[in-house]
Each structure stands twice: as C-alpha cells, then as structure tokens.
C-alpha cells in the first residue's frame, strides 16, 4: 500500500484537527474553559461557506473571508451576551453554558439545513497532484499550508505581542491581571472572536472535502479535543503537532490495521493520553492534586 499517500492524506486531515485544537487552546489558555460549542462554530463556518458559495455563488476567496469575519463577530457577540455574565462563576456553569450553546446552534442550523447532508462544490480543479508517486489533492495541500501559517501566527502572537501576554496573564489569574491594568473584558472578547474565526477557517477549508450537515461539528470537536489533549491543552505548537499526529494515526490505523477502528482511534488517543500523561506532549500545567 502507498504509505506516503496515506501519510500525506493523514497530514491534510490532521491540519484541520490542528486548527480545531488551536481554537480550543485559545479559549482554554485565556479563560481556563473548554468551549463545547466549538464544533458548532466550525459547522457554522462550513455552512456560511456553503451559503456563500452555492447559494450566493460568490467566489471562493470572498466566501472564505466572509465566513471568517462573520463567525468571528458571532464569537465576540456570544462572549458579550452569554459569557460576560458568567465569567466569574464556577467553571461548571461556564461549561454548561457552552453545552447549551452547542445544542442551540445545532438546532438553529437544522431549521434551514436539517433535512439533508450536503456536499460542497469542489474548489480546486479536481485533478490531484502527483509528485514522486504520491497523490495529494490540492485542497489538502492548501489546508496544510493554511494550518501551519495560522498556527505559526498565533505562536508568535502569544510570545511577542502585548495582547498575547495579556491573554496569558488573564488565564493565570484573572483578578491579578485586572489589578495590573489588563482590560480583562477586552481580552475575553478578542479571545472568543479569534477562536471563532479559527473555527470558521477550519470549517471553510474542510467543507469541500467533508460532508456538511448540522451534526458535523461533533466529530471535529472530539478530534480537536484529541489533538489538543495530545499536544497539551495550553500549548499552541502542541495543537499543530497533536493535530498532525491524530490525523496520521487515524490514517495508518485505517490503512494498515482495520477500517473498523479508524474512527474510534481518536477516542483511544484521548483516553490513553489522559491516563498516562494528562498534560500532553507540550503542556506545562500541573495536574491538580488534593
């Protein structure tokens, strides 16, 4: 079997997981909360791309930008309306609000799009690229490039920019950060907007090659979790490494072991990592011990 093709396909898939992981890491790094509604943000991104492309028949680049910007705003809006109120409440409450949000978003998507599973029109010419005996779709290659670029940008952002440092400060200690003059509310808004935007990017990139339907976010949430957990929930480079690894493992399992185990390998990864090394490959937070 063509291992090289398998690996490349795994990396292409993995880039999507990497973006998902990145979005999760963003919120977690700042607010110490896991956004269970991420899958639905991703789904909204895919659908807004679908609406722009198929229904409004806009060119792809415009659909892309439109989706990212709209969903980014939507993320900030959600934060302002729903989360600002509960930012100080126990994490349990915050998590439950994101769960409720995910049901609401799924339900909202079902109203216009609930009755079928949609396929995106292909973006790039269908002819796959063949190089050195390896076959890869142009869409896949584009996804890898974008994922690496976005992750790299965020890595620098957190390390170098002042806003990035403010976000890290807020996560470590919200009150402390406030005391030193960090505008915590602004940090939250920006975080959510960015996280949603990343989700939308993933959604629009994924849409041409996956099936678009209201429940599509669930799988990506779980794979994104697997990638984030594997890489370390608070590590940006961990997100991309984790993403690639999950994608590759899935492909290898499906191609070499058995197609039956392909989809569930991500969950095995989550369970294994959480039991053996909960901080993942690059994470630095300690486990809580009481």
């Amino acid at each position, binding site marked *: 079997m063509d291992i090289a093709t398998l690996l490349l396909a795994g990396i292409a898939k993995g880039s999507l997981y990497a973006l998902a992981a990145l979005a999760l890491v963003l919120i977690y790094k700042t607010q110490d909360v896991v956004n269970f509604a991420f899958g639905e943000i991703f789904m909204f991104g895919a659908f807004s791309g679908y609406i722009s492309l198929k229904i409004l028949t806009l060119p792809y680049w415009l659909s892309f930008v439109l989706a990212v910007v709209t969903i980014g705003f939507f993320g900030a809006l959600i934060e302002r309306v729903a989360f600002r109120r509960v930012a100080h409440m126990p994490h349990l409450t915050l998590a439950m609000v994101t769960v*409720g*949000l995910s*049901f609401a978003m*799924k*339900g909202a998507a079902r109203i216009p799009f609930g009755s079928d599973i949609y396929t995106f029109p292909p973006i790039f010419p269908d002819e796959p690229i063949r190089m050195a005996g390896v076959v890869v779709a142009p869409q896949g290659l584009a996804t890898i490039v974008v994922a690496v670029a976005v992750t790299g940008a965020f890595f620098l952002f957190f390390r170098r920019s002042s806003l990035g440092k403010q976000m890290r400060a807020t996560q470590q200690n919200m009150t402390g950060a406030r005391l030193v003059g960090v505008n915590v509310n602004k940090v939250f808004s920006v975080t959510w907007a960015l996280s949603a935007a990343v989700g939308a990017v993933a959604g629009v990139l994924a849409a041409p090659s996956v099936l678009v339907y209201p429940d599509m976010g669930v799988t990506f949430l779980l794979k994104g979790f697997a990638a984030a957990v594997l890489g370390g929930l608070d590590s940006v480079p961990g997100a991309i490494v984790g993403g690639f690894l999950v994608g590759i493992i899935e492909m290898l399992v499906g191609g070499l072991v058995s197609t039956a185990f392909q989809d569930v390998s991500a*969950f095995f990864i*989550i369970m294994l990592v*959480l039991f053996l090394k909960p901080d993942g490959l690059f994470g630095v937070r300690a486990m809580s011990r009481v």
Partner: protein
Amino acid sequence: MRDPVPPAWRRYAEPVFLFALLFVPLLTDKYTQYVCNLVLVYALVGIGLNLLLGYAGQFAFAHAAFMGIGAYSAALLTTRLGVPFWISLPAAGAIAMIIGAIAVLPALRMKRVYLALATIAFAELVTWGLVHWKAVTLGTDGVDLKAPYFFGWRIGSDNTKYFVLLAVAAIMYLFAKRILQSKIGRAFVAIRENEIVAQCNGIDVARTKTIAFALSAFYAGIGGALFALTLGFIVPDGFGLGQIALHFSIVVIGGLASLPGSLIGAVLVTILPEALRGLQGVQELVYGLTLMLFILFMPSGIAGLLRKYGLLPREILAAPGWREQAAERRHAGASAKAAE
C-alpha cells in the same frame, strides 16, 4: 434557630402524591400511558445525573453511555440468556455501577476539564463498542426486550409496565433521599463546593468521587434497563450525544441539586415534545436556548422557583431530628464535664 416546622399538608404531600400516582392508568389511554412510562424512566435517569452533577458537582458526559450499558445488559440477559427480569434489572444496574467505578479510577486526579473530555471519549467508545461488538450486542440490529417475566407476572401491557416502573422509581427516589441525608450526601456537596477545603476537612475526595460516579451509573443503568422494558427494542444509536443532551436538559430545567427537580424536568422534557408534535423542527433550538437561559438566569431550575414560593421544602441534607441529637450530645458532654 429551629428547623421551620413544615405545614401539615407538606408533611403528607409525598406519600399522598405517591398514592395518587397509582391511579394514573385509570386516566390514560395507551398512548398517554406510554408517555407516562417514559417520564418515569427519565425521572430515574435524571436523579442519577443530579446526584453526580447537581450534588457532587462532577461534570461528566458518560451518563447516556451508562444508560446504554444498563439497557443492553438487561435486554441481552433477558432475551439472549433467558434470565428472569427481576434478576436482570438489578444486574443491569450493577454492571453499569461496576464499570462506572472502574472507569472513574484514572480520572480521579484529573482536573475538571479533563474529566469532561475523558467522559466524552468514554461515551463514544461505548457507542462504538455497542455497534461493533456484534457477537454480543447484535450491533445495529438492536435487541428486543419483549414481555419479560417479573416474579411470575408477564409484563406485557403499558399498564403493567407502569406499576413496575412506579415501584422501582419510588424505591430509588427514597434511596437517593436517604443517601443525600447521610454523611455521603454532605460529602458530595462538600467536594462540589471546594475539593481542597473538603480534603482538609477530612473527606476522602477520591472515595467520594468514586461513590458519586458509581451511584449515578447505577441509577443510569437501572434507568436504561427500564427504558429497554418500556420501549421493547433498543439500538446503539439511542445512547449517544442526543441522549445526554436530554439528560442535561432534565436536570438543569428541573433544578440542579433537587430530587423533585429531576421529576419535574423529566415530565417537562418528555411531555412537551409530545404535546408540541407540530413544532418538532425547532425543538433542539428551543432546548439549547432554554438550557442556556436556565443556567444563566435560573440555575436552580424550576425546583428552585418552587422552593422560593414555599411549594417545595428547602432541602436539608441531614436526617430529620439532627438538631435534637446534636443538642443532646452537647448536653451529655457538658454534664460529663460538670461531673468531673
């Protein structure tokens, strides 16, 4: 301050309510009876989740998976192995409980967010297992549970099922109440509020968490077995994320940390979709929004509202008469000192 003495009617409310429930089959046609049966199943499941989430504060997504384990255990034992139902019912609960206790072991030292993720992964693995372990579970073919025998009685009709469901639900409700009024119940609340403080107060956090998980898994397992009984046929599909969404709605809308809340939530969440059969398209959206609204503005749910207006008693997590016992002990201590 003395315990407020509940008005006379409230003292008898519970037993009277229970007695009144015996007459429900007289008022219902087969369709409504079936819906009532589902309500009882979900009330039980809701109590289980409330114990874990509302009282012990553990955010876990595995409840639907345990319901599935219970449902499949009961159905497989009864249908494939011919075990009488009065054995397979508690067996289903026990199997779910044991798996719950084992599954939580590695999660004991995890932070909250990891626990949530691990339980999601666990839930997906369970669904995958139910689908792919065809030799045992018959995969997506599903398993029947038709008219089992319960101590010699054939449980065929919805009415007969109702009485079995009512009996089990009542017993388990009272059991839950007992547990909550004991030391374990107070330990649950302690670890919910602050694990570190609880540990410092001598509560074995790991042991309490294990008990919380095992107990809620037991309730979910029994609920699942009764679900299989009510429905007569189960498939792996029914125990995934859609099911857990239902469970969350039940406890949040009904009222976290409230046993009557679980019943209220079950009633609303089961009956409303049937009553609003015309509006099913927007159901999920309404669920999600309602869930968010309740968490944001009414975290104690409907039970909390009722409590405010005195229709439901405040929950005191202690056995009745504890103040008197404590006073006695103080008295005995003081007189012992005086005697020295």
